[in-house]
């Protein structure tokens, strides 16, 4: 995972297999970075993610809730078709926006 803070937006770039163990290992780092920057917007980029499961959904929902404290917005970026399908099952897109290549969907 990489991250970048720019113009009030905190970007997280995930890659590879975002499975349970990987999420467990990344979680605290993300929590701490969000608390540190208290950003207006957080963008989670899944472009390079080859695998995600319901643990990933739980992680995204939890970050959404965390951001509510600062009235921040969470945006999910560059989901592949199959990853989109998994996220969509949870109704998550009722709560947050999706972007592809910087363009709102």
């Amino acid at each position, binding site marked *: 995972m990489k991250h970048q803070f720019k113009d009030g937006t905190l970007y997280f770039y995930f890659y590879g*297999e975002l*499975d*349970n*163990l990987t999420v*467990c290992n990344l*979680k605290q780092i993300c929590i701490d970075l969000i608390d540190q920057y208290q950003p207006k917007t957080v963008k989670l980029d899944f472009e390079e993610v080859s*695998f995600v*499961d*319901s*643990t990933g*959904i*739980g*992680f995204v*929902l*939890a970050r959404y809730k965390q951001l509510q404290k600062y009235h921040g917005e969470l945006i999910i970026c560059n989901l592949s078709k*199959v990853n989109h399908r*998994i996220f969509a*099952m*949870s*109704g998550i897109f009722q709560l947050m926006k999706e972007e592809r290549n910087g363009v709102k969907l």
Partner: protein
Amino acid sequence: MNKMTLECLAHLENEAFIRTSAIAFLMPLNLSMEDCMEIKTMLAEAVVNAMIHGYEGNHEGIVRVHVSYDENQIEIIVADEGCGIDDISQAMQPLFTSKQHLERSGMGMTIMQTFADDFHITSEKGKGTVVTLRKRIQHECVSE
């Protein structure tokens, strides 16, 4: 027709191993990328559930995975001898989770149900849980 059984400790790091193994076992079927992804995801859900719900993170627990196929379908059975499920119909509800504090989404059952052509689960309090997933094999008309 082919079959295999795999047993391992409930270490979270074994989840990726189980996914990789199952896909390696199914290699001769030449599955589509999409079928592979769906199978990996269903397995991840069932195996993670066995580890973190069934055994509640106790690494001594044994997760058993059975994979078999014939020309028509793939069958995957994931079994644990963990705590079991109290109320299966509640567990099946989208977004229901008993482990909110672990940032679970409650979507595992829904994903398995969506990706499997046939899904059922039996569970006994204190005895364990068995999840059975079946997927029909799409026979493509290969023009060779």
